[in-house]
């Protein structure tokens, strides 16, 4: 029996400071063991538990894409014990990793369909993974039109600026960036994500919407999608709860009969409406 509690080592190769307040950093890590690399087969939307030995573990969605083998990226907001310790680490340091965990986005269901990805804040990390996955040469033809709506409180808090710049240059992706509050030099849109979604007005025909971000953004985005004609089965959300084990045993991430860690974190809105009131946005 493989021991699901024992992490394998990964080495930090690079650390990118994502935000102007330096509170979000992306850790680019490489596998130390060849076997660990071979066994780590993941899809966008899945997550892993990162160990800082002596401090503990915390879960993070993979911000990287499986089309870039050998490396994983995790974007970490400095907020607690483990994330604080991670932010102190340097290139060359070793962390522990358990995973991949969770179900990930339903890539097969999305094939041949138009996709509208709606993200906010640092919840955007797995949507970045999904976007880069679809944009990869080997996958782009399998999916329809791709629309990405991404917002942050202010321009300096938008993540993955290098990717955003590259995506803006492409003709096969519609990118709509927005900030709650503009600042000097911001040429882009100012407004909340749900309002931008309404004005972009994606067509629900042959389309799926994927939503990941803070609860308030989800709460106000769902009625907009409904207004636009998206049925509950065509809306997917990536949820978050406090997690420890990541394998459906430690008991803290359940919503009704579903464990966010092992049944999710990705659910359709149709599935969520079947669950208890805790899952209703």
């Amino acid at each position, binding site marked *: *029996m*493989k*021991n*699901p*509690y*024992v*992490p394998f*080592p990964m*080495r930090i190769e690079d650390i990118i400071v994502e935000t102007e307040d330096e509170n979000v950093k992306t850790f680019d890590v490489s596998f130390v063991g060849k076997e660990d690399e071979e066994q780590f087969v993941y899809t966008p939307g899945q997550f892993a538990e990162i*160990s800082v*030995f*002596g*401090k*503990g*573990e*915390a879960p993070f969605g993979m911000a990287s894409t499986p089309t870039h083998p050998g490396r994983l990226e995790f974007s970490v907001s400095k*907020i*607690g014990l483990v*994330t604080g310790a991670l932010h102190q680490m340097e290139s*060359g*340091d*070793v962390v*522990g990793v358990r995973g991949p965990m969770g179900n990930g986005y339903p890539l097969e269901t999305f094939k041949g369909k138009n996709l509208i990805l709606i993200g906010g804040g640092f919840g955007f990390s797995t949507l970045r993974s999904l976007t880069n996955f679809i944009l990869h040469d080997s996958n782009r033809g399998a999916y329809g039109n791709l629309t990405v709506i991404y917002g942050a409180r202010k321009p300096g808090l938008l993540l993955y600026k290098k990717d955003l710049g590259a995506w803006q240059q492409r003709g096969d992706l519609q990118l709509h960036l927005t900030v709650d509050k503009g600042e000097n030099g911001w040429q882009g849109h100012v407004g909340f994500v749900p309002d931008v979604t309404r004005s972009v007005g994606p067509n629900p025909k042959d389309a799926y919407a994927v939503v990941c971000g803070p*609860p308030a953004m989800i709460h106000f985005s769902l009625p907009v999608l409904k207004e636009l004609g998206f049925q509950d089965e065509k809306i997917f959300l990536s949820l*978050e*709860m*406090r997690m*420890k*084990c990541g*394998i459906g*045993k*430690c*008991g*803290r*991430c*359940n919503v*009704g*009969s*579903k*464990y966010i860690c092992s049944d999710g974190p990705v659910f359709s809105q149709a599935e969520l409406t079947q669950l*208890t*009131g*805790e899952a209703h946005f």
Partner: protein
Amino acid sequence: MFSSARIVRKDRLEGFLERLLEDREVFAPVRKGGLVTLEMIDSVRDVILEYENTKESPKAAVFPQRETLFGYQAEKGKVALDVPRGKEKEQVLFGIRPCDARGLLLLDRVFGGDCGDPYYAEKRAKTLVLSLGCVNPNPTCFCHSMGGGPCSPEGSDLFFLDLGDRYMVEVGSDKCEALLEDEAFEDADEKSLALSEKIRKETEASMTPLALNENLKEHLGRLFDDPAWNALAETCLGCGICTYLCPTCHCFDLCDEAAGGTGERIRVWDSCQFPLFTQQASGFNPRPTVKERFHGASSNVLSTWISVKS
């Protein structure tokens, strides 16, 4: 399901337990600090078999309150992990109650078999459950209303029932083949079989059933926002001790105990009744008050995780 029945005369039980102790760890009810607790025994003289329930369930024998998952030695740029070796000896849970034996079956759904928890599975495989039926159940007991019974052999490798001067022993699994070769066991006679059936029926009939709705699960789902939860939660201190005593509660925390670069990742019991259990790093808590936590635990125990893990 039960292949055969045996008899152990009461004056031969002590000898049987002594022989068990020769090469196994034996946990049995003993009196400690005015309560009856399940303890690893050194001497069979400490064992008491006339009691209602032990203070704690036997779950700690397979799911310890604190357990080392691995040790580690970390230094700049590398880490070495060391997973502890499992138990060497078999362990026997002797004299536990049928409700606690059944509780282990529910824990199996979370940790056992193919559920991928090697720490639990290894201990469980080396555990023999020798339970003792209740002939005098506590007035607050409710096993019979939850599908179990005071004399139910479910979950037991051997099930003992007190017939006065002897115990009827039902064989519930093939894990005890070696034990049954002990000289204390005799074949059961018709008279003992009939007496055990009579005791079983009388004991079950003596219990007052809980007034549970047959469609409890369905009702709980619909009552999510019912104001009754407020009144129920007002009686709860949120201390979490119910989850520590419950034979089926299995929530845990994972944390590191470290001194310099050396330390351990440990698993410790946790409780859904504690405010930090679900509190996220941002400060957001989906179950912020005793009401949500009480509601969560009640729904979980009576409805949701049973359906998840079945």
